[in-house]
Structures are given as C-alpha cells and as structure tokens.
C-alpha cells in the first residue's frame, strides 16, 4: 500500500510537468528542424535551377528551340503501353464527331485515326497540349486529356480495324485525280530518291520498317496528308524530332507531294502490317 502510494503520488505532477516540458521543447526542436530543411531544400533548388539555366545559356548561344517535349524513354513507352482501350472507347465519344464513329473521318482534311499506332497518336496529343503543334481546333481539345487519357485513346484507336465498311460515311478511299502520277508515288514510297537524300516512305511509315513516332499512312486521307507535307516543308508544322520530316518534305516538289498524298489517299499504299 505504502509503496504504491509513494510511487503513484509523486508520479502524477512529475509526469505532467515532464510531458508538457518535453512537448514544448520537442515542438520547438521540430519547428527549427522543419525550417532548416525547408531552407536547405530551397537553396538546393535555387542552386540547381541556377546551374541548369547557366549551362543551357552557355550551350546554346542561339535561342533554344525544342521541337517536341516528347522523348522515347522507357518511362514514356510504359505510360503509352499502359493505355486501356475500354476507357479509350468511352473517351472517344468526344472525337467521334470529326474523326468518325469507326475512326474514319467523313471530311478528307481531317485525319483518320483507325489503326494509328499508339506512339504517334500519343506524341501528337502531347504536342497539341504543349503547343508544339498548332491547331485552332485540336489544341483546346487535347488540353482536356491527361497523358494517361491520351494513352487510353491511343490504345482504342490502335485496335480499330482498317477494313472497309460500306455502311460507314467515310471519305477515305478517294480515287486519284491523275492516275499517271502513281509511278512517281510508287518510286518515292518504295525507293525514295537517293540523289536528293530522300529515304523511301515505307522505311519509316511501314510496312517495311517503322521508326518511333512515324504513323502508318496506308489508310490516311488525301487532303490531310497533302496539307501536312506542305506544312512540314514550309515549317508551319515543326514538331518532328531532329528535323527529320522537315528536311525530307523540303526536298519534295509540289507534284511529288500531291502524288504521294493521292496515292496513299486512294488506299493504294503498302498495307498496314501487324505491329
């Protein structure tokens, strides 16, 4: 009894005091520690930012122009390959009006999205969002989709069939204005022009081989293709990484641009192979 009273009685005030003292001191200590860490973090960020901007300004004396913020890193590829086609199907309601219920547009100046490969679709969406590719219509729409939603849409459109459907109101196979131009188109698509340094279309856009970010062209609309090649050649569209498409389009003559666009737009180009 005695021992218990002693052990209990002095304990209460002592404990209370101790606790309050401890919390006060601890609070102070924690507070100073937080402030210190925050200050150190701030300093580190400022230093890093300063160093970055310094190195950039040294490395690039002319103003830095970045064609696209997209890089084909493993992280990017992971985001794109995680796209869910079913979520894409639900999101695609916003795209149906222009790009068609089945991914084939009824107007020839709008691109067909059916069968488009995931990487190029995702890259264009990101470029619209960042303003690297300009379009009065697409920029505000693309801003409404996050990177993940773009990946979902990409997965959905990549799995849409590219076979013909007579019930669908699509502009796609449009016959060539001048069938005589087909030989020009075939030469450029299959062989390119080595003398001018124009590689064959099919070596990047398929089906012979593919380059990351190059869309398949075999089911693309004529007027859209012609417009884009023209924009690449005059520099209005400049979101191709490392000046690839711009330096090719600049070499093409007007007739060659029309011939290749018409040939692909007529559904005559080499087919979409399994990717």
């Amino acid at each position: 009894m005695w021992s218990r009273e002693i052990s209990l009685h002095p304990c209460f005030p002592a404990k209370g005091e101790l606790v309050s003292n401890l919390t006060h001191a601890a609070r102070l200590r924690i507070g100073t520690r937080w402030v210190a860490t925050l200050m150190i973090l701030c300093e580190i960020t400022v230093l890093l930012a300063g160093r970055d901007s310094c190195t950039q300004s040294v490395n690039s004396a002319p103003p830095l122009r970045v064609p696209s913020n997209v890089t084909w890193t493993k992280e990017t590829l992971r985001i794109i390959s995680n796209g869910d086609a079913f979520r894409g199907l639900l999101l695609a309601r916003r795209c149906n009006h222009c790009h068609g219920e089945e991914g084939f547009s009824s107007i020839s100046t709008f691109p067909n999205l059916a069968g488009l490969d995931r990487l190029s679709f995702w890259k264009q969406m990101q470029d619209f969002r960042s303003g690297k590719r300009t379009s009065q219509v697409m920029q505000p729409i693309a801003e409404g989709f996050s990177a993940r939603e773009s990946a979902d849409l990409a997965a959905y459109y990549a799995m849409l069939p590219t076979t013909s459907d007579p019930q669908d109101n699509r502009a796609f196979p449009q016959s060539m204005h001048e069938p005589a131009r087909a030989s020009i188109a075939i030469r450029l698509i299959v062989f390119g022009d080595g003398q001018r340094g124009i590689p064959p279309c099919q070596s990047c856009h398929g089906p012979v081989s593919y380059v990351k970010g190059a869309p398949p062209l075999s089911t693309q609309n004529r007027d859209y293709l012609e417009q884009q090649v023209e924009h690449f050649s005059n520099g209005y569209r400049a979101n191709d990484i490392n000046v690839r498409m711009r330096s090719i389009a600049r070499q093409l003559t007007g007739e060659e641009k029309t011939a290749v666009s018409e040939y692909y737009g007529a559904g005559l180009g080499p087919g979409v192979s399994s990717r």
Partner: protein
Amino acid sequence: MSLSTATRSAGMKKIGIAAAVTLLALVLLSIRYYTVDLPIYHFLGGGEGPDPPALHLRGEFVESNLGAAEGPSGSLTVRMIAQQFVFAPQCIVVPANVPVTFRITSADVVHMLSFVGTDYGLKAVPGEVTEATFTFATTGTFKMPCHEFCGAGHDAMRGQLNVVPRDQFAPLLPSERRTCE
C-alpha cells in the same frame, strides 16, 4: 585395333560437332553483330555522352545549334545528328581551306558519315560524340552518304556538303549554313 579406331572416330566426331557448333555461333554472331555491338560497347564503359532520345531537348545537339558554328577562338565546328534515315542538318555549308571540326552523334543506331571522293569518314554512335577535323581543298558540292548499314532506308541516306570560298562563307547567317536553298 578396331576398338581404338572406334574410340578415335568417336573422339573426332565430338571435336567435329564442337567445331561445327562454334562455327555456327561465330557465323550467327557476325550476321547479327549489329545487335550486340552496342551492348558490348556500353558494357565496356562507352556511351557516356549525350542521351540519344533526348538530343532535341538539351545539350549541344539541340535543333538551333546544328550546322556550322564559329567558336570563340575563330575555329569552325559543325554539329550533326545521324538518324534513320536522314542526317540533321541534311545539307551543310563549309568554307574551303579552313580546318572544320565535325562533331556527330547518333539518335538511334550506328551510322557512318562518309565524304564521297575522300577517305574521310566519321562513325556516329548513339550516346557518344565523334569528333574529327577535316580540311576541304576544293570547292563544290559533295555527297555524304551513310556508310554503315542502318536499316531499310540506308541506301537513300545521303547528306550534302557545300564547300564554298572563304569570303563567300563569312557573311552567311547560322540558319543559312545548315541549308542549301
């Protein structure tokens, strides 16, 4: 007698099979060399240079920095990217009789920039900057084909080099030094 011949022939057979397998492995390796050369190179500690997929974002190979540029000491440096299946920039303008330093890297696979009519050649390796200094004595237009098989469009991968007199080169703007129009 017959037993020893049998064992010897069995031993020869084993050696023969081993030799055949080794030969086959060597042939396969030499055919598919381009798929193992870069991993081996990176394993040996190479490829510490610019990041191939991010060349367009940062570093010296950004778009606005390509082509011929004068250094602070008056030296001339040409920066180029080799990629499937065009060189960037595709056409470069350099002065004659002036040492020109080429700095080239690759954005995807191994390429080789060669100059028709000369022995000059520059290997472009992803993750690595290759540097060499050349002097062009004659003015004119030269082709710069890719001299290392790099894929389906390799045969059409050709750059162009315009060697112009020195006094004609000086007034050109940086943007005019990376185009032939």
